């Protein structure tokens, strides 16, 4: 590939053909099967998909947090800031975890250690990554609690997780992730466990913190509303693969993959009256029971013979847009089926 325009700056994080396998009693399954994406500096990429599609596992893979019997397969490639995360030594990797790449988990109830106070948990991260004294680390922790919007942080810092509300616990998690000023935040459904009103506050907090620090973010969610508010680009995952990727505006304006279209149709919209929300029939098949052709074929309204015979490749379908669907090369089928649907 040659072009006259200068090469774009290298992405902060780059995944290429990442495959994770698990050995089970019933054979080897591949819940993350050839995932590739880039996140630029300061950019937010939303990774979207139903439960069980492999998005959380993909996040854990980035920091090599997959335990036996799971395995990151040879041929996978993860590069962060010019360094290969999959081949670096354990010690170097620990220097990346929490310091340059920090993760925020879904359940603040269980992701905080019940035996340490809020301040101690944050100070622990500081002391892991720097030579701070106890006092300095504690002062940083208290300051960080204030920065994530916790009132009277001096008092809250001494409280234990069970004494804090869900929203506050998640703020503590965010403070733990932000305290070392990481250049990449991985937020795995950071607001799913919280009340809707608190969700919005925390998303604002995350977005502001990210912007202030110029950090990038991988936002994992199944909530398309969250995506629209927070992300610049979206990758839609289905059954261990990315099936569509696009800038957020374009994705919402014209989803290309039938699965994405289904997700959009299943989302309630303000200003429209509908008796019932549309649903996608069926469920994500478990890894190991994936069809040989297109993995979405048996839930897809457009599916024809080619879909069950041949797995579709990722097709370039516009500027920065990709779709893993045979419709990209046989677009006439889309209109034909739509017409058939209209006359039926």
């Amino acid at each position, binding site marked *: 590939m040659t072009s006259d325009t200068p090469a774009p700056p290298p992405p902060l994080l780059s995944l290429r053909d990442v495959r994770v396998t698990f050995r089970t009693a019933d054979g080897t399954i591949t819940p993350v099967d050839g995932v590739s994406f880039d996140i630029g500096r300061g950019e937010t990429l939303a990774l979207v998909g139903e439960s069980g599609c492999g998005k959380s596992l993909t996040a854990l893979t980035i920091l090599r*947090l997959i335990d036996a019997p799971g395995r990151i397969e040879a041929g996978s490639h993860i590069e962060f800031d010019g360094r290969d995360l999959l081949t670096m030594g354990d010690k170097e990797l620990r220097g990346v*975890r*929490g310091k340059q790449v920090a*993760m925020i988990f879904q*359940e603040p109830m*269980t992701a905080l250690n019940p035996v340490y106070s809020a301040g101690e948990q944050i100070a622990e991260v500081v002391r*892991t990554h720097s030579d701070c004294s106890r006092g300095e680390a504690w002062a940083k922790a208290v300051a960080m609690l204030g920065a994530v919007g916790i009132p009277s942080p001096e008092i809250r810092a001494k409280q234990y997780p069970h004494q804090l509300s869900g929203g506050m616990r998640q703020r503590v998690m965010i403070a733990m992730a932000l305290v070392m000023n990481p250049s990449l935040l991985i937020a795995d459904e950071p607001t799913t466990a919280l009340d809707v009103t608190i969700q919005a506050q925390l998303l604002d907090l995350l977005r502001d913190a990210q912007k202030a620090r110029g950090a990038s973010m991988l936002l994992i969610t199944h909530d398309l509303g969250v995506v629209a508010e927070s992300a610049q680009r979206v990758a839609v995952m289905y059954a261990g693969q990315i099936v569509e990727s696009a800038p957020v505006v374009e994705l919402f304006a014209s989803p290309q993959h039938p699965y994405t279209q289904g997700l959009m149709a299943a989302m309630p919209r303000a200003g429209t009256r509908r008796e019932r929300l549309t649903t996608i029939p069926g469920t994500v098949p478990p890894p190991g029971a994936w069809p040989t052709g297109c993995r979405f074929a048996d839930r897809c309204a457009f599916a024809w013979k080619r879909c069950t015979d041949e797995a579709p490749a990722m097709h370039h379908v516009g500027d920065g847009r990709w779709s893993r669907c045979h419709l990209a090369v046989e677009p006439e089928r889309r209109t034909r089926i739509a017409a058939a649907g209209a006359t039926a």
Partner: protein
Amino acid sequence: MTTAMHSGSDWRTVLRRLRRDRRSVLAAAALMGMIVLVLAGPLLIAYKPYEQLDITNLVHAAPSASHLLGTDAYSRDVLSRVLSGGRVSLAVAISAVGIEVLVGVLWGLAAGLGARWLDAIMMRCVDAGMSVPRVLLLLALLAAVPQIPVWLLVLVLGITGWFGIARLVRGEVRAIRSGDFVLAARALGASPPRLALRHVLPHVLGPVLVSATMAIGQVIVLEAGLSWLGIGVQAPQASWGNIIKDGTEFIASAPWVTLGPGLCLVLVVLAVSALGDGLRDALAPRQLPRT
């Protein structure tokens, strides 16, 4: 805010619950009293534990104002021997359990956090250790060393007793390691030793403390048994076990020689096990007390 989600208990809460439990308070007081008594023994009693006071007139003297527990076959003051022996018995038990806990906790942590193959090898060793009766193991080891010094006795008691604690810790660790907060700690860069000691260890300390308390009772009885057989603490050094041994021959004519150390032994073991029960209840108040 309810505390229903809260799995651990902080130590202040545990202590408060313990203080409300009459049985635990009584047991703790009895233990404390015993420890103070044996430590202060030399100050309270005018006679030395080895001193043969009057081998012609004071053999097997019944308890009296000057000899509260009477005297033994060598005219030694039994009370001073019981206190001196208690010092040895308690010190041996506490040190041996210290070794049990140290080895058991480290072993269990390593097995619980280690790779599967390491876990398998380490736990098979524990199984092997547990499959041999401890008394048999001790008899074999101790028979090899005549006139065993006390420090070696402590070591031998310690290294034959950690298997249960290792298994307990390993089980708890296995349950905890899959927890979100362990994953979160790893994601934030905690090294394996830091993970083990700072993030996992605090969660197993409760059960370990209960089991260590119970183990003290066990080791005291074990040491007494070994000393009674003559392969534990060696004469002239007194311990509760070998005082009972000395008194056994004359149990009909001079029962006070065995009665003193016997009662102390029973009291300490009862107190320790009651305290262990109380601790267990204080740590896991949602469980109904065992009946």
